[in-house]
């Protein structure tokens, strides 16, 4: 059997490309949605500008987590592939990229919807800021859980060695 090391590299590069490509799609939309709804809220309640701005930043920081997880997986695929040769390792690397990339689409959009709607609602009832922020944090974290599962699966696949 000739040396198949290049197949591993091919799979790793394609996986990294898919992971970061799709992994940027979801969170970017989510972050933009959050900022847009926050602006809408700021125009309704000009006095709460600073507090709404901070809530927007908090929500965006949460929503970006899945993008960062995709970045970590892409770097791991490029530079820290782990041992093993052969088609099974190549398939594992490719699948690792698929996993986090596809997951980050949904997680990013969902978290963006959560954070954005939280900002818009907070503008409508500024007295309920703490409650709304807490609901946003919990809701975002729960909806992020499948993204974390996908990240764990990606890492397991990267460090698979036959």
């Amino acid at each position, binding site marked *: 059997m*000739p040396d198949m090391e290049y197949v591993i590299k091919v799979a790793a590069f394609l996986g*990294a490309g898919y992971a970061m490509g*799709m992994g940027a799609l979801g969170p970017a939309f989510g972050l933009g949605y959050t900022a847009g709804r926050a*602006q809408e809220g*700021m125009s309704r309640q000009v006095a709460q500008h600073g507090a709404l701005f901070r809530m927007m930043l908090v929500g965006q920081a949460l929503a970006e987590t899945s*993008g960062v997880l995709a970045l970590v997986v892409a770097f791991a695929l490029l530079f820290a592939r782990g041992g093993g040769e052969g088609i099974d390792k190549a398939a594992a690397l490719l699948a690792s990229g698929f996993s986090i990339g596809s997951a980050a689409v949904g997680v990013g959009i969902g978290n963006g919807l959560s954070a954005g709607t939280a900002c818009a609602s907070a503008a409508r009832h500024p007295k309920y800021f703490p409650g709304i922020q807490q609901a946003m944090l919990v809701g975002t974290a729960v909806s992020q859980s499948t993204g974390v599962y996908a990240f764990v699966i990606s890492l397991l696949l990267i460090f698979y060695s036959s």
Partner: protein
Amino acid sequence: MNLEAMQTLAPQITKAAAFLGAGLCMGIGAIGSAIGEGFVAGKACEAISRRPDVYNDLFRTMIVGQAISESTGIYSLVIAIILIFVA
């Protein structure tokens, strides 16, 4: 296709895969940033039309929101550059 012929082409096949990955990465990654930033800009216009007196605050929020929304697109750019030049 025999495996030995593919073996001699191995460096080129690796490079080909790196380029495909880079194109995939930056191409799809740009979609989200574009949609997000456009949404922010549109909402900013709407908000400014509603309250033109707070133009400065709204403009600053728009710039910050767009810069943050761009960040995952920048991650894609970094991975694509690494794939093209380093890998």
